[in-house]
C-alpha cells in the first residue's frame, strides 16, 4: 500500500480500501502484513559487539540509538562496532502479531531487537542483521527512509482486466473509484550508451508477436544489488529480489504490467530473432529443465540458438548475471492465446506468461521501456542507448464506443446522469464526446475489454455503485409450474424417502471394472481425461455406484440400510461412420443439417431410479422382528412405484438367477428387481450380506396415477378363503392373473395369505391360500358367493390342475 501512495493520495484504512475495491472493482483475496505493524524502529550504531557470556550462539551488542545506549542480545554474528542497524523498540507489534517486550535472554537484558531483512519485510533473507549504510542518521526513525511495515492486498484480477496486473493500473482504478487524480511517474534518464543497432532485430513470426522493442543499456556496474526500497516492493509483491538488473525489469513489470526481459549483450550473437521453434529444438531454461520445442512455440533467439521461450521463461545461456555490464532489454507484446497454449503444454506458468496470456496492450511497451531504462541508470548506473530497435508494424489505435444514456439506465435499472457517466468514463482514461444523449467514448488501448456499449454500461454502473441499484421484481407474464415429468421425479424422490430410504447422489463415473464385475455389455462412454482410472467410464446402471456406497457404509460399521438415487445413465450411441462428419459439425457449431440432433450426439442419456437394500433394512424392535434385504422387500417398492407392473423371471449376470425379475409395464420393459448375485456382492466388498436392488426407468414409473372415483354401495362384504394344492412350479402370479381375468363383477379383492410346502402337502406341491372379498350391488346370498367361488375354483382346476384342500 505504501507503493500505491506513490501514484495517488487517499485517506482510507486497509479495511476500507478492501471494502471499496471489492464493491466497485475486483475481489480482494487476502490482506497480508509484513515487517512491523505498529511501533517504532530507529537507526542505531553498534558501539560494542561480542559473544554472549552464557550462550554459544548468541551475541550481545551495545547500541547507540542517538543519545542513549542500550544493550541488545542478537542471534546473528554479522554486526560489528560502527555498523548501523535498524532497532525495533520494545512495545512494537510485528506482522505475525507478536508484541516485542524488554526481555532477559540467558541472563542479559535485551532492549528491543536488531532486525533482519525478513523481519523488516524487505526480503526473505534472515541470514543476518540488516546493515545500513552511513546515509542513515543514528537516532532517526527508519521510517524516514523506508516504510518498516507493509500491508499487501492480494487482488483477484478477473481475466478481462489485464490492465490491473500493474500498480499503475490499480492506482488508475482506485482514482476512478475515488474521483481523484493519480500520477504516473515521468521516466527521465540520460542516454548515450552503446548503440543498440550493433545488434540486429528480426521478427519472423509476426502473427505471434505484434510488437517487439529492444534497447541496449551499457556501462552497467556488475554485481549490484537493487536499492532497498525496490527490493522490498518486489518482495512484498511476492517475487524474489535477484540482482539490480533483473530487479529493475521485474519492478517495472509489477508497476506497469508489462513483462520485460534482459539479455546479457555479451552473450547474444549478432542479434535477436523472434521465430517459431524448430521441430526437436531443445532449450534449457533457468529452472534447470530442458524443454523440447515445436513450431507452435514462439522463441526469442539469436542467430545461433534459442534464448527464451517467449513470454514464459529464459534460458540460462544469455541471462544477465553477476558479471553483466552490457544488457539488451526486451519489451514486447506476444499473442495471448499462443502463450496460454505453450504454457499449458509445458506445464509452466510464470509471472510473465500469466500477464501475456490475457492479452496486453502493445502501446504499453514504450513507457515500460523508458521506465526500466530510467531504473537501470540508477543502482547499476547503466547508460541506455540513444536508439531503440522496434518492430511494431500495425500500431493499435484507440477505438470509439457509443454509450446511450437511456440504454445504461435500462440495463442498470437506475438513473444515470450524463455528467456522472462522462466523469466516470474519463476517469478510466476514455475521451468522451457528447452528442444528443449519446456519449462517444474513445477507449484507451490498455482497456482492451471495453469494446461494446454493454461494456461501458458495466463500468459506469460499478463506479456509481451497484449498491445504488434499487431492488424490484419483474412482472412475469406466465404461470410457473413444474412439468408433469418434473413433478413425477420429485414425487418419486419424496415417496422413496417417505418409505424409509435415504437419497444418495453419487458420481456417474466409475472404473472399468464396474462393467466387468456386473457383466454388462452395453456400450460404455469413456472419459478422455478422467481424474483417475477409478473414474474413467460413465455408468450404464445406477447399481454399481450405489453398491460402492453401500460397501463403504458397511466398512464403517452400519448393519444395513436402504439407498436410492435418481439420475442419468449413459450409453454410447456412436453415430455411423457416414454421419461422423455431420456429428462433429453439430457438436462444434450446433448445425444439424438434415439430420436429427439426437442421432448426432453419440451418447444416449436415460433417467433412472436405482435402489439398493442391504443387510438389515429395518432393525428388530422389542416386539417386531427385523427385516432383512430380500427380493420381496424390493419388489414391494416396485409395486408402489409402478402399480400394475408385471414381473417375469429374468437372467441377468449380476442378479441371483432364481430371485430376479424383469418389470414390465404393458409390454414395455421398465427395469428389473432382484437379489444381487452373491459373486457380484463379493466383488463389491459386500460378501455375505443380503442385498436386493432394483432399477427402473423414471419415465415409466407412475406411482400415483390420476385418481378416478368408482361408485360404491353400502352393502356388507363377504369374505371367503380358498386353499388349493398346485405343483410347485406354478407361478402364483399366473393364478392371480387368471382370477383377475375372470373380471367377476362381485369380486372386490383377492390376496394371497399363505403359501406352504412340506408335510402334509405332498412332495412337489405347494398349498396356496387365497382370501377373497365379494361385494355386489345388493347384499349377496350364500348361493351367489358359492357360485362365484366355484367358478374361480374350477378355472384354477382347469388351468393349473389345482386341487382344493379341505
Amino acid at each position: 500500500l505504501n507503493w500505491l501512495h506513490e501514484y495517488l493520495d487517499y485517506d482510507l484504512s486497509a479495511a476500507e480500501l478492501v471494502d471499496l475495491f471489492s464493491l466497485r472493482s475486483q475481489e480482494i483475496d487476502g490482506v497480508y502484513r509484513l515487517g512491523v505493524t505498529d511501533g517504532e524502529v530507529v537507526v542505531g550504531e553498534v558501539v560494542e559487539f561480542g559473544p554472549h557470556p552464557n550462550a554459544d550462539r548468541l551475541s550481545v551488542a551495545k547500541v547507540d540509538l542517538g543519545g542513549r545506549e542500550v544493550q541488545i542480545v542478537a542471534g546473528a554474528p554479522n554486526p560489528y562496532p560502527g555498523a548501523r542497524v535498524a532497532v525495533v523498540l520494545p512495545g512494537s507489534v510485528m506482522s505475525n502479531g507478536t508484541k516485542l517486550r524488554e526481555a532477559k535472554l540467558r541472563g542479559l537484558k535485551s532492549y528491543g531487537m536488531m532486525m533482519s531483512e525478513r523481519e523488516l519485510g524487505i526480503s526473505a533473507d534472515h541470514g543476518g542483521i540488516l546493515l545500513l549504510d552511513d546515509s542513515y542518521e543514528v537516532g532517526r526513525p527508519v521510517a524516514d527512509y523506508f516504510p518498516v511495515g507493509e500491508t499487501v492486498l492480494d487482488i483477484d484480477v478477473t481475466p478481462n482486466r489485464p490492465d490491473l496486473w500493474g500498480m499503475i493500473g490499480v492506482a488508475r482504478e482506485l482514482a476512478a473509484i475515488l474521483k481523484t487524480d493519480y500520477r504516473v511517474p515521468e521516466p527521465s534518464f540520460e542516454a548515450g550508451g552503446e548503440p543498440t543497432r550493433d545488434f540486429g532485430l528480426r521478427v519472423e513470426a509476426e502473427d505471434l508477436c505484434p510488437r517487439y522493442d529492444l534497447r541496449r543499456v551499457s556501462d552497467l556496474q556488475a554485481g549490484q544489488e537493487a536499492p532497498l526500497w525496490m527490493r522490498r516492493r518486489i518482495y512484498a509483491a511476492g517475487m524474489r529480489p535477484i540482482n539490480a538488473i533483473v530487479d529493475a525489469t521485474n519492478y517495472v513489470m509489477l508497476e506497469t504490467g508489462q513483462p520485460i526481459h534482459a539479455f546479457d549483450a555479451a552473450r547474444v550473437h549478432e542479434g535477436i530473432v523472434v521465430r517459431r521453434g524448430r521441430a526437436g529444438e531443445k532449450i534449457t531454461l533457468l529452472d534447470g529443465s530442458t524443454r523440447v520445442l515445436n513450431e507452435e512455440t514462439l522463441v526469442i533467439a539469436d542467430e545461433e540458438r534459442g534464448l527464451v521461450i517467449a513470454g514464459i521463461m529464459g534460458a540460462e545461456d544469455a541471462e544477465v548475471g553477476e558479471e553483466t555490464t552490457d544488457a539488451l532489454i526486451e519489451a514486447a507484446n506476444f499473442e495471448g492465446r499462443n502463450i496460454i497454449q505453450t504454457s499449458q503444454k509445458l506445464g509452466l506458468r510464470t509471472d510473465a506468461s500469466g500477464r501475456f496470456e490475457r492479452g496486453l496492450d502493445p502501446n504499453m511497451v514504450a513507457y515500460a521501456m523508458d521506465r526500466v531504462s530510467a531504473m537501470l541508470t540508477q543502482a547499476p548506473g547503466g547508460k541506455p542507448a540513444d536508439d531503440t530497435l522496434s518492430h511494431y508494424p500495425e500500431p493499435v489505435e484507440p477505438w470509439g464506443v457509443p454509450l446511450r444514456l437511456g440504454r445504461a439506465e435500462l440495463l442498470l435499472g437506475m438513473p444515470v446522469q450524463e455528467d456522472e457517466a462522462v466523469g466516470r468514463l474519463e476517469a478510466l482514461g476514455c475521451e468522451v464526446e457528447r452528442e444528443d444523449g449519446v456519449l462517444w467514448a474513445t477507449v484507451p488501448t490498455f482497456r482492451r475489454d471495453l469494446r461494446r456499449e454493454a461494456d461501458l454500461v458495466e463500468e459506469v454502473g460499478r463506479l456509481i455503485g451497484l449498491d445504488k441499484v434499487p431492488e424490484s421484481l419483474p412482472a412475469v407474464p406466465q404461470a410457473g409450474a413444474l412439468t408433469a415429468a418434473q413433478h413425477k421425479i420429485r414425487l418419486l424422490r419424496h415417496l422413496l424417502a417417505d418409505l424409509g430410504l435415504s437419497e444418495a447422489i453419487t458420481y456417474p463415473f466409475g472404473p472399468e471394472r464396474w462393467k466387468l464385475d456386473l457383466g454388462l455389455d452395453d456400450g460404455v462412454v469413456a472419459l478422455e481425461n478422467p481424474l483417475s482410472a477409478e473414474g474413467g467410464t460413465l455408468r450404464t446402471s445406477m447399481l454399481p455406484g450405489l453398491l460402492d456406497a453401500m460397501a463403504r457404509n458397511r466398512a464403517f460399521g452400519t448393519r444395513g440400510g436402504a439407498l436410492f438415487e435418481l439420475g442419468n445413465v449413459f450409453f454410447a450411441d456412436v453415430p455411423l461412420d457416414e454421419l461422423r462428419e455431420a456429428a462433429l459439425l453439430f457438436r462444434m457449431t450446433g448445425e444439424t443439417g438434415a439430420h436429427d440432433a439426437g442421432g448426432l450426439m453419440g451418447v444416449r442419456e436415460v433417467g433412472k431410479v436405482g435402489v439398493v437394500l442391504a443387510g438389515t433394512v429395518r432393525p428388530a424392535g422389542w416386539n417386531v422382528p427385523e427385516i432383512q434385504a430380500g427380493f420381496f422387500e424390493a419388489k414391494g417398492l416396485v409395486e408402489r412405484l409402478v402399480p400394475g407392473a408385471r414381473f417375469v423371471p429374468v437372467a441377468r449376470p449380476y442378479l441371483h438367477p432364481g430371485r430376479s425379475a424383469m418389470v414390465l409395464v404393458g409390454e414395455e420393459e421398465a427395469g428389473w428387481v432382484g437379489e444381487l448375485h452373491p459373486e457380484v456382492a463379493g466383488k463389491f466388498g459386500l460378501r455375505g450380506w443380503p442385498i436386493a436392488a432394483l432399477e427402473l426407468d423414471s419415465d415409466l414409473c407412475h406411482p400415483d396415477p390420476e385418481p378416478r372415483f368408482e361408485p360404491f354401495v353400502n352393502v356388507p362384504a363377504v369374505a371367503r378363503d380358498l386353499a388349493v394344492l398346485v405343483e410347485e412350479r406354478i407361478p402364483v402370479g399366473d393364478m392371480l392373473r387368471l382370477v383377475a381375468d375372470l373380471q367377476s363383477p362381485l369380486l372386490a379383492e383377492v390376496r394371497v395369505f399363505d403359501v406352504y410346502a412340506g408335510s402334509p402337502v405332498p412332495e412337489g406341491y405347494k398349498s396356496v391360500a387365497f382370501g377373497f372379498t365379494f361385494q355386489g350391488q345388493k347384499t349377496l346370498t350364500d348361493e351367489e358367493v358359492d357360485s362365484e367361488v366355484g367358478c374361480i375354483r374350477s378355472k384354477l382346476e382347469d388351468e393349473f390342475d389345482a386341487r382344493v384342500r379341505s
Partner: protein
Amino acid sequence: MTVSERIEQLKSEALSAVSSSASTADLEDVRVRFLGRSAELTEIKKSIGTLAPEERKEVGRSSNLASLEIEAALGSRTEEVAAREREERLRAEAVDVTLPGVPVQRGHLHPSQMVIDDVVDFFVGLGYRVAEGPEVETDYFNFTALGIPPGHPARSMQDTFFLDEGLSLRTHTSAVQIRTMLVQGPPVYIVCPGRVYRRDSDPTHTPMFHQVEGLAVDRGLTLGHLKGTLGAMARHVFGEDVEIRLRPSYFQYTEPSVELDVSCFVCAGTDPACKVCKGAGWLEMLGAGMVDPGVLEEVGYDPEEYTGYAFGMGPDRMAMVKYGVPDLRLFFEGDLRFLRQF
C-alpha cells in the same frame, strides 16, 4: 305362607343375592335364578290364572312389582360391577409407555436436493418454468454459443471432462439456457437445476456438483430486477433478515457481471469468530449479470428489443453453509451417517 309372602321372601332373597354378587357373571346367574324362565317368581306369575279372583289381583300386582324391583337392582348392580370390571381390565392392560413404538423407518432427502427444491419452488412461485438438458453436452452448447470459442482463455478457467471429440460433461447448466432460447422466443423465465462436472477434487471442489442457473429475457428487464429477484430468493432460503449486496465481477456471457453476497444469516457480521462467514459478515452466494447482447444475438433475439439477466448458484455450497457441512466431498459418498442427518 301365602303366595304374597312367598313373593316378598323371594324378592328379598333376590335383592340380597344381587347385592352380594361381585361379577357380571354372578349377576347373570342371579337373573336366571330369580327371573329366568323356570324361576319360582316366573312360575308364580304363570299360575296366577289358577288363583282365586280376589287373590289374583294382589298376587299379580306384587309379583310384577317384585320383578321390577329385582330387575332395577340387577340393572344398577350390573352397571356398578361392569364399570369396576372394565376398570380392572384396563388396569391389567396397561403397558410401559416408555417402551419404543413399532419402528416407522424415516427416510431422508439429499441436502443438495432439498436446497434445489427450495430454490426451484421459489422461482416457480414467481412464474418461472424449469428447464433441463443433457449432462453430456456438445462443445457448441457448452462453450461456443456462450461466447467461449475454441482457444478462448475462459476455457482454461474450467477444467473440462472430455468425451468423444466435440463432447464433454457439461461444465455448467448454461447450455440449457441456450437450448431453451433456440426453441422458444421471448419472454423466457426459466431456472435450470442439474449436475455439472469439472475436473477438480479437494475439500471444496468435487468433480461433480450441482448448479441452479436462471435466465430471464423480456422487454425492459434491468439489473434492478435481477437484484430484487435474487434478494427475495436469498431471504426465502436463508431467512427474512438477510441482506444482499452486489459486487462487480466478470463472466463470459453476462455484461455487466456481478457477484451476490448474502449477509451472514448466523452472525450478521457481528461475530469476528463466526464459523459460517469466518468473520467476514458476508457469504459469497452466486454469480449473475445482464445477458451479454452477443448471447442474445446468437439465439436470434434482438438485443435492442430484449434485455435479460442470468444467474447461477451452487446449491451444494448453499447446503454446506445452511447446514454447517465442512467438506463438500461428503455430499457424494452415499454415506448413511451423513445422509441420515437430513
